[in-house]
C-alpha cells in the first residue's frame, strides 16, 4: 500500500462528498415538482411526454397503484427489449452482420437490463448490433434507473407524509428523473469521456496493419454515450466484453476517476435527497456517513490483499513488492494505468453501488480480495446500492435497526416520528430477506445439480466462489462477475454462427434477477404506504435519535450481523478457504 493510494481514496471521497449535497438538493427539487433551471430548455419535452402518455400522468397514486404501474411498465419494456434482441438480423446499424443470441441467453440478458442488473453472459463486441446497444440496452440503462429513482421518491414521500395515502405519480417521477437528472448528466459525462479517448462512432470494425508487423482489428461503436449512462444509472453493462478494463471504454486515469464518481454519484446524493424531502438533512448525512465508513473499511481490505499478491505469483517466483516505477502486487487481470489502487477502489465502489462494471478481472483477485466485492453485494446492496433501490433498501434496514433498538429498551420503535409496528416489520423482513434467500437457494441448486457444472471455469473453492458470486450478483442486481462463470458459448465465427446458451444458468439467473428486483421493490412501497397514513408524533426527550454517531454504529452493526448470519457458511466454503491456503490446485 502506498501514500499515493490512500491519497487517491481521500480525494475520491472528498469530491463525492462535495457533490452529494448539491445533487441531493437538486434531486429533491426535481421530485417535489419545484421549479428548476432546466425546465426552460427541456420543459417542452416533459409536457410533450405527458400529453402522449395521457391522463395517467395526472392523478396521484397510492402504493398499490404505484406498484402496479411499475410492474406493467417493466413488463412492457421487457417484451420490447426481448423483441429487439431477438431480431438482430434485420437491424440497421449492424456493420458486423451479427445474428441474435439464442432465446435462453436473450431471456437472461433481458431480465438483466430490465432489472438494472446488467449481468452479461454475452460479449458486447461479439454479439450486439449497435442498434441493440443503443435502442435496446442503453434505453434500459436509462429507464430501469429512472424506475428505481421514482420508486425511491414514492417511498420517501411515504416516510414524510402527514397522513395521506398518496405517494405521487409514477409517470411524472419517471419522466422528470429521466429528463432532468439522467439525460443531462449522461450527455456531459459522455463528452468528457470522449475527450479522454472513449470512442463514439457508427463505423464498422477497423482492420489495420500494425507497426509491430501484424494485422489488428479494432472494435468500434457508440461507446461513450452508453458508458456514461451505464455508470450513472448503476447499470454497469459493458459495451465491450472486458467492460471498463478495455481502453476504448476507460482510456485514462482521469476517465477512470470520472467513471468511479459517476458510479456512486446518484446513490450517494439520494441520502441528501431523502434528508431534504423529510425536512431533516441530518438524517440524510447519517445514512451517508454509514455508507462511507463501510466503504472505506472494505477498501482497506481489498487494497491490502491485492497489494500482497497471490499464491500463484509467489510460487512462480514473482516479486510483488512496491518499488520505484512499479506497482507491485497482483497485477494479473489489471491494467497498468489503474494499478492496484484504482483497481481495488473500483472493485469496491462498483459493488457498493449495484453497478457491476469492472476495470479488472475479479476472478483473478486473491481469495480475500475477491471476498470484498462479494461482501459488498451480500449486504443487500444498501451501502450506496443501486440508483433508488439502494436507498429504499437502506431505509428498510434502518427500520430494522430502529426495531431492534426498540426491543432492547422496551419502547415502541419510531422513525422520523412514525411508529414502526408489526405490519411494517413483517414487510421489512420480507424485503430484506428475500434477496439473500434467492441468492443462496439458486447457488445451492446450481452447486448440487449437474446442470450447474458447465458454467464453472476454475477448479476447487474458486469454482464454488464463481457460482456463489454469480447468483449473489444477479439476485442483488449488481452484475459484476467472477467472469470465468459462463452461460453462453460463442465460437469466434462470423455473425455468431454456432453459438449456444447454457439454458440452466440463463434461466436460473434470469429468474433470480427478476424476483429479487420486484419483491423488495414492492415491499418497500408497501412499507411506505403503511407509514404514509400514520401521523407524525413530535420528537420529545425520550425519542430515540437516528441522526447521530451512535445510530450510525448501530446501523453498521445491523448490516454486518444480518449479512454475516445469512452468508457466513457459504463464504467460508469459497473465498475464505481460498484466502487461507497457499496451496495450488490443478485444473480438473
Amino acid at each position: 500500500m502506498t501514500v499515493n493510494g490512500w491519497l487517491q481514496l481521500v480525494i475520491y471521497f472528498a469530491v463525492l462528498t462535495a457533490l452529494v449535497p448539491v445533487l441531493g438538493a437538486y434531486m429533491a427539487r426535481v421530485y417535489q415538482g419545484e421549479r428548476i433551471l432546466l425546465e426552460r430548455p427541456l420543459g417542452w419535452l416533459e409536457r410533450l411526454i405527458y400529453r402522449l402518455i395521457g391522463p395517467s400522468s395526472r392523478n396521484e397514486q397510492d402504493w398499490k397503484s404505484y406498484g402496479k404501474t411499475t410492474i406493467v411498465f417493466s413488463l412492457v419494456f421487457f417484451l420490447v427489449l426481448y423483441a429487439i434482441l431477438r431480431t438482430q438480423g434485420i437491424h440497421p446499424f449492424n456493420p458486423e452482420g451479427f445474428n441474435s443470441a439464442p432465446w435462453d441467453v436473450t431471456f437472461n440478458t433481458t431480465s438483466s437490463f430490465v432489472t438494472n442488473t446488467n449481468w452479461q453472459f454475452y460479449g458486447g463486441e461479439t454479439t450486439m448490433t449497435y442498434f441493440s446497444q443503443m435502442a435496446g440496452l442503453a434505453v434500459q440503462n436509462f429507464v430501469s434507473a429512472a424506475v428505481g429513482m421514482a420508486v425511491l421518491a414514492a417511498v420517501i414521500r411515504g416516510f414524510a407524509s402527514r397522513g395521506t395515502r398518496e405517494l405521487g405519480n409514477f409517470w411524472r417521477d419517471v419522466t422528470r428523473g429521466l429528463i432532468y437528472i439522467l439525460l443531462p448528466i449522461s450527455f456531459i459525462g459522455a463528452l468528457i469521456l470522449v475527450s479522454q479517448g472513449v470512442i463514439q462512432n457508427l463505423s464498422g470494425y477497423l482492420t489495420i496493419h500494425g507497426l509491430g508487423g501484424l494485422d489488428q482489428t479494432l472494435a468500434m461503436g457508440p461507446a461513450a454515450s452508453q458508458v456514461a449512462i451505464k455508470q450513472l444509472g448503476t447499470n454497469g453493462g459493458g459495451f465491450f466484453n472486458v467492460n471498463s478494463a478495455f481502453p476504448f471504454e476507460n482510456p485514462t486515469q482521469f476517465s477512470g476517476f470520472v467513471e468511479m464518481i459517476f458510479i456512486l454519484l446518484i446513490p450517494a446524493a439520494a441520502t441528501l435527497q431523502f434528508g431534504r424531502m423529510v425536512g431533516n438533512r441530518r438524517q440524510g448525512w447519517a445514512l451517508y456517513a454509514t455508507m462511507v465508513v463501510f466503504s472505506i473499511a472494505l477498501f482497506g481490505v481489498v487494497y491490502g490483499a491485492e497489494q500482497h499478491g497471490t499464491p500463484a505469483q509467489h510460487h512462480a517466483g514473482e516479486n510483488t513488492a512496491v518499488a520505484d516505477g512499479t506497482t507491485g502486487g497482483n497485477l494479473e487481470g489489471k491494467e497498468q494505468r489503474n494499478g492496484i489502487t484504482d483497481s481495488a477502489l473500483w472493485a469496491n465502489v462498483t459493488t457498493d453501488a449495484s453497478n457491476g462494471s469492472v476495470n479488472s478481472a475479479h476472478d483473478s483477485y486473491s481469495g480475500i480480495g475477491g471476498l470484498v466485492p462479494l461482501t459488498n453485494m451480500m449486504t443487500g446492496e444498501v451501502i450506496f446500492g443501486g440508483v433508488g433501490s439502494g436507498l429504499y433498501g437502506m431505509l428498510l434496514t434502518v427500520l430494522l435497526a430502529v426495531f431492534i433498538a426498540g426491543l432492547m429498551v422496551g419502547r415502541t420503535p419510531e422513525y422520523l416520528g412514525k411508529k414502526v409496528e408489526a405490519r411494517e416489520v413483517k414487510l421489512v423482513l420480507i424485503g430484506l430477506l428475500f434477496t439473500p434467500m434467492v441468492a443462496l437457494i439458486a447457488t445451492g441448486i446450481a452447486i448440487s445439480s449437474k446442470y450447474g457444472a458447465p458454467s464453472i471455469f476454475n477448479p476447487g473453492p474458486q469454482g464454488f466462489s464463481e457460482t456463489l458470486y454469480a447468483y449473489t450478483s444477479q439476485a442483488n442486481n449488481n452484475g459484476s462477475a467472477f467472469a470465468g462463470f459462463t452461460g453462453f458459448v460463442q465460437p469466434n465465427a462470423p455473425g455468431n454462427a454456432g453459438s449456444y446458451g447454457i439454458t440452466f444458468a440463463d434461466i436460473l439467473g434470469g429468474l433470480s434477477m427478476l424476483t429479487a428486483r420486484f419483491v423488495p421493490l414492492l415491499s418497500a412501497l408497501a412499507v411506505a404506504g403503511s407509514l404514509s397514513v400514520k401521523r407524525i408524533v413530535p420528537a420529545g426527550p425520550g425519542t430515540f435519535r437516528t441522526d447521530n454517531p451512535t445510530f450510525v454504529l448501530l446501523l453498521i452493526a445491523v448490516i454486518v450481523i444480518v449479512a454475516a448470519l445469512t452468508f457466513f457458511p457459504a463464504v467460508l466454503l469459497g473465498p475464505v478457504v481460498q484466502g487461507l491456503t497457499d496451496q495450488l490446485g490443478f485444473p480438473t
Partner: protein
Amino acid sequence: MRRDLTASIVAAVVFTLLFGLAYPLITTGVSQVLFPNKSDGSLVKVDGRTVGSKLIGQSFTVRRPNDNSKKPKYAKKQIKEPNPRYFQPRPSVTAYSGDVTFFNNLGPNNKALMQQFKGYIKTYLALNGPYDQGLTREGIPVDAITSSASGVDPQISQANARIQAHRIAAVRQIPLDRVNDLIDDNTDGRSLGVLGEPGVNVLELNIALDKEQS
C-alpha cells in the same frame, strides 16, 4: 390496468426514440465535431499510414523460419517471436485482439496460472537477460509478467521500460541515455499528478524510436 398498459406502450416508443436514438446519435454528432480523432479510436499514423491506436496495445513480433525444418510438417511454418528492436508490451491471453476481448480468469491458487507466470518470466529473462547483466527474476516488475485485464494494455511500467532500454540501446545502437529520454517523453504521468498510475505508452515510444533512426 388497461390505461397503464397503453401508457407503457406509448412510453416504450417515446423513450426508445429519445434515449435509444436521439441521445446516442446527437452525442455521436457532437463528439465527431469536437473530438474527431478520439471518437474514432485515437488512431496513430506514420507517413500517412495508420499503424494502430494509441490506446490499444499491439504485438511487436518478427517471423523466423522454424528450426525444426527436418520434419516436413513444420518446414514451412514460421515462428513469431518478440522483436528485440521494439519495446514489448505486457503479456496478453487474447493475442492482443481488439475485437474479441476476454479475461484470463484463472483463480489466485490455480496451478495453470502459476505455469503461465513461469512462462512469462522465462520469456522476459531470455529476451532481456543478455543485455542487462544484473537482471534477476526478483528484479522483474509485475506488469511484465502478468497478463493485463483487457489483453491490450497500451502501457508498461516505467521500471519495465528501463530494463528493456538496455536491450533497445544495444540492438539499435543508440546511447542508453537517449533511450531513457525517449521513455520519459512517452510516459503518461498520473492524471492531475495524483490519479492512477504512470505508464509508458509502448506504441508511441516505438514510433519515437523509429523516428530517431530514420
